[in-house]
């Protein structure tokens, strides 16, 4: 019945993927995702990494993309209901046959979402490398 690697006292019905739900029953040890910060404090030199210039610049790089990208999509998205609500005449202007500004603007939201998502993935690949470098640096420090 019980699969290997599964705690004997985990009584969650076995059929769902373990990640779909938190396990039921009390295993002798807390699963990693339930450990609190205090319990994990010894895992690494958290304050040291936080103060590290590489980490600080990584955070800056992330914020430099995420903050403007969020602003862009929020403004672009809410322009749609604002336009539909307060500028119906403009939105009803026909552009191509019966297709009006309202539909094209709504359609452009899909393209906007896809483009921003692709951009994010492209930019974030660089962050992964920098994060891995920071982790490697501190692990070496610990080993010395």
């Amino acid at each position, binding site marked *: 019945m019980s*699969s290997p*690697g599964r705690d004997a*006292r985990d*009584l*969650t019905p*076995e*059929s*769902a*993927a*373990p*990640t*779909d*739900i*938190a396990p*039921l*029953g*009390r295993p002798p040890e807390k*699963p*990693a*995702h*339930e450990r609190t*910060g*205090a319990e*994990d*404090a010894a895992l*690494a030199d*958290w*304050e040291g990494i*936080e103060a590290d210039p590489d980490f600080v610049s*990584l*955070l800056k790089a*992330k914020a430099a993309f995420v903050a403007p*990208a*969020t602003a862009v*999509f929020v403004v672009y*998205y809410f322009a749609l*209901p604002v*336009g*539909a*609500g307060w500028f*119906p005449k403009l*939105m*009803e202007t026909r552009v*191509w*046959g*019966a*297709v009006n500004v*309202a*539909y094209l603007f*709504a359609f452009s939201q*899909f393209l*906007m*979402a*896809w483009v*921003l*998502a*692709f951009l994010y993935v492209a930019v*974030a*690949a660089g962050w992964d490398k920098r994060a891995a470098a920071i*982790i490697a640096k501190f692990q070496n420090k610990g080993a010395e």
Partner: protein
Amino acid sequence: MIAAAALSAPGDRTALFMFLAFVAATLVITYFSARKSSGASAYFAAGRRITGWQNGLAVAGDYMSAASFLGIAGMIAFNGYDGFMYSVGFLVAYLTVLFVVAEPLRNAGKYTMADVLAYRLKPRPVRAAAALSTLTVSVFYMIAQMVGAGTLVRQLIPGVSYEMAVVGVGVLMVVYVVFGGMLATTWVQIIKAILLMSGSVFLSILVLDKFDFDLGKFFTSLTAITSTGANGEILTRDFLAPGLLFKNPWDQISLGMALVFGTAGLPHILIRFYTVPDAKTARASVVWAMIIIGLFYIMTTFFGFGAASLLGPDYLKAHGGTNMAAPQLAHELGGEVFFAFISAVAFATILAVVAGLTISASTSFAHDFFTNVIHRGKERRPGEEVKVARITAFVVGAAAIGIAILLGPGVNVAFLVGLAFAVAASANLPVIVFSIFWKRFTTTGAVAGLLVGLVSSIALILVSPDFMKTPWFPLKNPAIISIPLGFLGAFLGTFLSREPSAEKLFAELKVRANTGLGAEKAADH
């Protein structure tokens, strides 16, 4: 019972049997794929092999519930362009997920919202409040699925009333969850997503075929849709023009806020980002999900507007109402077989979503509330937590059945899900965001934010035009007021308290959320 009478043609039995056969086949397929995928030492072993697009399909499957397929199609068929706004909002919402919550959550190695909150704050109060909000959002979401299932079954089995259908479906689902556990939801969702996508593509092609694949002709047909108004007058309206549903512009803004900020607070969507091995795959799966969901919502143009143009609101009103637009269109264009197929896919969707919701809601309650809060993390007797979870599943199911019956079949399920999104955005999003980004955030702030968001959104829904004859609150969706209230509650709660221990642990959370350091440990479990 106009609807049942209208459909009880001789061919109706065929549709019913085909429907049952399709549902059975779907369940068998998912059962065997589930067998194959689970039982491995841990999901993560399989998870590392699962590629970004497979994960994306699972996320998409979770998201494309009855609301997306039945609800949006009906919204557009009855209200034209304003219904299409739901499609847009549901997709753009994923940018909030991608930019703000997915990566920190995955990197910190947490399962649920409660795990994230308990990390720095006092576990007992925040877990209690988080369990309450998870339960509420799940019930709202389930009500929508139940209404959808009820209208579907009523159409398929002549003579069955909506109430009987909802109770039957509800009991079936609760039994399924309480006694049988759940099939591997990941695979249910993957297979369902594929079926739903292929059904939608086929339906869209059939619609376009009616217009000789001429998009210009298709859109031109939408500019004059005739229907009977509330007082029996004949209305001819341009379905591409905004404003058919939302007379008050603030309604659209409020709904948009609920959709765009709510997804990032939905418990069963958040859980999905933990199932991938690293941040890179998490991102890839969000993008794949966005591609699939986006294509699907673009297709709502064809089958939503197509239902308006080819069948018309009056016909749909007499044949199952707002939630049956897509199945009725399939019936008209593809005959009994396609009708049965589309209904079966919709039903399997509902089954999968409800099973997932019931399990996550009842587990959250049993685990976070019962064991962690009441018994301080100790189970008194082995199996007690499972028992509580089952009782909770039963209670949650019963509540959803009761409310679904009270609301009746005429309520659009996309509208109902919009309310669930509003509750999620108001209660959950503020505390997730503050917990990840604000060092000074405290337990009092988290509990205050959760409760203020929860209570204000529900209170405003109850006094809104859809629930009161003379509404005290003018908007259909409470988000525009309740989201700021949720943030304000969290802010004031934090401002009035101090928690140095939580501030001290912020460095740790920040490093973990941004580097993924320590998150790999989760894979051992």
